[in-house]
């Protein structure tokens, strides 16, 4: 997992400017900001609004519409656990419930040590190898409680 850098107005402006030549640059800008800083904070909206000649409310509306954009920093590792029906047919709901209880968090929550954020995802296209997840962007499938715990420990270097 790459460490996100902390918010920097000049760097953010640079990212925004780089995308202004595109048709409909909003989503590419938001993705790029999140990749750089780990989330899209409230500071970003005025910057984008100015550059795209939109109101802050419009930009805020876009940021909050999409599930992907985080409003605060996530854990160092991110687990996206699939909740689609195919994964449910192989016991993903129980798998998720047990994991969240064990970690003491809810969906979208971050563990107290700041190490892990668990997010729901509705289908990763690994439906013939359920249950599945993305851990720091790497796919894992045919999961059970043991293999999931093992993968998380491995990512955390335990």
């Amino acid at each position, binding site marked *: 997992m790459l460490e996100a850098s902390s918010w920097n107005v000049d760097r953010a402006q640079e990212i925004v400017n780089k995308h202004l030549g595109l048709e409909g640059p909003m989503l590419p800008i938001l993705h790029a900001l999140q990749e750089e800083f780990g989330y899209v904070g409230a500071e970003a909206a005025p910057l984008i609004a100015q550059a795209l000649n939109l109101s802050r409310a419009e930009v805020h509306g876009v940021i909050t519409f999409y599930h992907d954009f985080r409003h605060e920093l996530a854990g160092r590792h991110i687990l996206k656990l699939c909740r689609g029906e195919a994964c449910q047919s192989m016991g993903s709901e129980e798998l998720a419930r047990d994991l969240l209880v064990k970690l003491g968090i809810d969906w979208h929550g971050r563990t107290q040590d700041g190490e892990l954020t668990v997010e729901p995802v*509705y289908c990763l*296209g690994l439906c*013939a190898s359920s249950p599945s997840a993305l851990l720091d962007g790497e796919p894992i499938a045919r999961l059970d409680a043991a293999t999931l715990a093992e993968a998380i420990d491995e990512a955390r270097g335990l």
Partner: protein
Amino acid sequence: MTRIFIPKDIAALAVGANKVAARIEAEAQARRLSVEIIRTGSRGAYFLEPLVEVETAEGRIGYGPVAVSDIGGLFDAGFIDGGAHASRIGKPEEHPFFARQNRLTFARCGIIDPVSLSDYAAHGGWRGLLRAIEIGPAATIAEVTKSGLRGRGGAGFPTGIKWKTVADAPADRRYVVCNFDEGDSGTFADRMIVEGDPFALIEGMTICAVAIGATKGYVYCRSEYPHAAKTFSQALVLAREAGCLGSNIKGSEHTFDIEIRMGAGAYVCGEETALLESLEGKRGIVRAKPPLPAHKGLFQRPTVVNNVLSLVAAPTILDRGAEFYASFGVGRSRGTMPLQIAGNVRYGGLFETAFGLTLGEIVEEIGGGSASGRPVRAVQCGGPLGAYFPRALFDTPFDYEAFAARDGLIGHGGLVIFDDTVDMARMARFAMEFCAVESCGKCTPCRIGSTRGVEVVDRVISGVKTTENIALLEDLCQTMKFGSLCALGGFAPYPVLSALHHFREDFAPPALAAE
């Protein structure tokens, strides 16, 4: 030098394909054997992944599923000459899972190196595009129309008619937009073809561009598919370098280029008008139709919005002719459909076949029943907005009309199998919950109906005025079905009502179940 083929499809990686490849390379080196490892897409038999194939004098021989711990044994058994081993499946194309398929769209998938232009050309690539350039726009559209191809995203609208509408709309510019927002649970055909044969999508979009006179295309890829996006971006660079995109495509006067854009985790953006809003940089909110995207689409210009599979079918249709494509299928469902057999199933994967197999044949014969070994109880067809089919309806043939006649839909071709441990009331609740999470909020039946739907199902599950609340739920479903602007709110009632009608026993508290 022995060539060894190992998939790098994400579903193969998820079960250790990279580790297997690294281990085979190391083992070959240690044994001083000369091997070349070629990374391919997946053939789609996910129960066999990681599937390792070696090139021998008699053809490619497959071994699968291969675990890292099997590799020493495979070398001992002489697998690089096709030697006998417990995991040897013989020639993949003769394996029962593949022998019954009609691979048109997925003919190259899992066989070639996805980002090798020479592999693509050697396996029939670009022939469809060259023919489209040769015969011109009108004849190209006529060919697609005659093939009977219908939109593979789910709605089943005739593709040729859509193309003609856009071609005929007066405009300063037109767009081709590929809907690669494959959000339905239980579907992975778009992902698999883009990872395994990305040039086919580039060719399909270029054929469309030639036909409608577009110079710019967008692929809207869901953010849950970063791996596919990476492969496709690589393919775009190679195609541009080779003159298959850009100015004077393949030496013609046509100019066309493609850009890939990432979604941001909104299921509703798979709906074409929400997708266009999102591409324009707005909230992914559904537009009222008319105007149709074919008249006023992206940036108010005439736009073809097609699913990946519809576009990828075009090269085959142009290359081999409309009659050839239309010779597959039944009734008004022509050509082939990649079935995606998923969930609790023994032989899960992608099965491309002509329309017309029955649901029972697909689930029991091809899928081999459940993975758990328990009886199959329900099959959800067509994604999270598709109906649950009970065993009693296993005689339904897989085509658009037959499924519609039984209050179902084939959608994008996904089939999610559940064994007898499934609680159908919980699945009905999930359908409403999913709709509430993903609703864009534009129309009231979907935005509020889905939340109320969760509450009503909860009351039914906890046994509060069961009969009255079931009646209320049915009424709510009718309102959502007929009052919603798009398929999200309009189809969310399908899983709920089908669960209710076919699995009523799950909706009553145990004490009342006998009544």
